[in-house]
């Protein structure tokens, strides 16, 4: 009896405390009753899970067979099946290296490790030597390509972002103005025009004999784009440091670069990790735009699979799956950044 009273009390407090509240509750319940059952019917009850073609699915519900059939393509694009172990091993090496770098808190060590990793990653993924067959970048695709573009974009943007942030704080007026204009220029234009620039304008600026492929051009422009956003995030960290830090460092007789390297940047970067993670989330979502210039990232593969004549009308399943994957990635990263923020506040 006590529990009934408690739950009634809870209901009254949280759902029916006054007229407006009651009305809201009732209308929202009606909305849920109207929208949820058909959704669940489509997703689970009427859905088809087994089979191998569109004919095995009924038209009442979702055809998850579609996702299963296209799963390898959604993950890796047209990366040859026999070579996919290279992607797996790159992933495993990346995790190993991250753990090793976390063990030893030495910036120089991490940088060397990172340089080593980039060489290994390019060798493994692109190949062409050491007995590994070459996998051209136009075969790269799917979630793999999305992750490659987002990580390379943010990591490559990092050094330039730091320099731009420092430049905006510089006491040299020319450098300060240049950095300010550079940052505002990149932040003021949409990513899509930047990608257009990468695909049609960049080749015009390069001599004939240099031919950079489309992925590399897109990566280059994404790096420049991301560096402007990163610079603003890092600048926030620089501004949050008390000015006494730099004054003390000057008083010790450190040069400008020593001050930055040993005193200012370690503290500033530590503070802006949540902001950097948020920038990464934004970039991860924006990576989908590369499909407009003809690179087949995760969403690009979903879109092309949905127009496959054998699977017509299965776009919804593709979008639902893409939404789920993106949601898992972005939600977990945003939770991580929130966790870091809370840890810093303590």
């Amino acid at each position, binding site marked *: 009896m006590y529990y009934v009273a408690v739950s009634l009390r809870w209901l009254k*407090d*949280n*759902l029916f*405390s006054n007229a407006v*509240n009651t009305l*809201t*509750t009732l209308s*929202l*319940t009606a909305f*849920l009753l109207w929208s949820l059952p058909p959704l669940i019917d489509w997703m689970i009850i009427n859905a088809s899970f087994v089979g191998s073609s569109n004919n095995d699915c009924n038209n009442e519900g979702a055809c998850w067979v579609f996702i299963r059939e296209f799963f390898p393509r959604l993950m890796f694009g047209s990366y040859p099946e026999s070579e996919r172990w290279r992607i797996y091993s790159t992933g495993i090496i990346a995790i190993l290296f991250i753990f090793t770098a976390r063990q030893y808190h030495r910036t120089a060590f991490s940088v060397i490790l990172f340089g080593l990793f980039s060489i290994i990653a390019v060798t493994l993924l692109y190949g062409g030597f050491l007995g590994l067959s070459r996998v051209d970048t136009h075969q790269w695709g799917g979630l793999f390509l999305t992750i490659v573009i987002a990580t390379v974009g943010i990591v490559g943007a990092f050094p330039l972002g730091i320099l731009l942030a420092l430049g905006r704080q510089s*006491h*040299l*007026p*020319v*450098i300060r103005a*240049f950095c300010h204009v550079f940052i*505002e*220029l990149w*932040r*003021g*234009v*949409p*990513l*899509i*025009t930047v990608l*257009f*620039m990468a695909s*049609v*304008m960049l*080749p*015009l*600026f*390069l*001599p*004939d004999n240099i031919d950079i492929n489309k992925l590399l051009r897109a990566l280059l422009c994404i790096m420049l784009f991301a560096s402007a956003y990163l610079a603003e995030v890092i600048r926030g960290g620089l501004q949050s440091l008390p000015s006494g830090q730099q004054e003390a460092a000057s008083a010790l007789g450190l040069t400008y670069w020593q001050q930055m390297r040993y005193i200012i940047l370690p503290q500033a970067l530590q503070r802006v990790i949540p902001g950097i993670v948020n920038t990464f*989330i934004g970039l991860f*979502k*924006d*990576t*989908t*735009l590369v*499909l*407009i210039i003809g690179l087949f990232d995760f*969403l690009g593969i979903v*879109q092309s699979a*949905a127009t496959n004549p054998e699977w017509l*009308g299965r*776009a*919804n399943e593709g*979008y639902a799956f*893409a*939404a789920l994957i*993106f*949601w898992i*990635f*972005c*939600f977990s990263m*945003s939770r991580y950044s929130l966790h870091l923020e809370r840890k810093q506040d303590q």
Partner: protein
Amino acid sequence: MERWRPSLCSTVPVSSMKFNTRKTRAWIYQALFIACIIAIGSLLIHTLLQNLEQQGIVTGFNFLSQNAGFGIVFSLIDYSESDSYGRVFWVGLTNTLLVAGLGILFATIIGFVVGVARLSNNFLAKQLASFYISLFRNVPLLLHLFFWYFAILQPLPGPRQSIDFFDMVFLNNRGLYIPKLISEDQSNGWLWLMAGLIVITLVLIRVLRSTHKKYVWFASIIGAIMIWIGVAPTYTAEIPTLTRFNFSGGIVIIPELTALVLALSLYTASYIAEIVRAGISSVDKGQVEAAQSLGLRPNHTLRLIIIPQAMRLIVPPLTNQYLNLTKNSSLAAAIAYPDLVSIFAGTTLNQTGQAVEILFITMLVYLSISLSISFSMSLYERSKQWSKT
């Protein structure tokens, strides 16, 4: 005759240190920097000109007056295939501004509602709002756009099986058809009368608000009736009617526009909701308690105490979201809504090959929109003297 100097200073004689001061070094660094930038810039421009010459592309903005020769499905200003590329630019720009304006309007409304719901006492509203925010924020905008366009609007039935609302508004796979108001007499006399009446009513409401609060509603209703009487007879609604193949009459909102506005506003609303929530919850609890103890009613507390203080924190990031929305409207290219990027940086660029000029103009447009919004923002902040706090 050397003066004694503390050993901390270097032992280099004073005379040779003249040029090695902080100031001269600063000048040298900056001069070197400028020289580098100029060198890189001229190298790039040199290669560019060489490449353009090789490909036989004539530089310059003369192409803007050439005949475009392609049709555009949706345009706010008059446009036909025989118009110039310059006209295409204006069509694209107005279409971009239309999408951005509509997106901002709906995103603000939805964002504020969801943001307030997130803080509501109602358990269901709170949970639904946080579900909405988490779902919409963590999915790329392009996916939203594809969903609305390819999964919702395109599979709609054709004109014959349109979904109709009260036989006035029709929705099918060709677009949303809504009634259009058309004036019977061509002179705009009635329009001016209407504008005048609205102004008088607004003034009346403003005057009454400070003295006779009770009569505000009364005045607004009277004003509305006066406007109705004055204007209604001259306007008739042109209701879309089904002809053999499609609807005719009324205003057509193409599915691309609907999808774009839906995707942009729902996506941005999830960010605005978080901004609103953060703004409102930043207002000190004591403020609300003080207002209550003064005897203010809940809606007055919200309107007079909470919102003015919350706005201070809400407005700057809110403008940032408006900017993002405007920039994101360029995703229109993905579903072929004729915005600036789609028809100017897309179709026009492909036809003329003037990549540098076109991308320069396009980027300049977005840049000036961004800069003017952030400039007006800083003026607004200064007028409220918020930046000081």
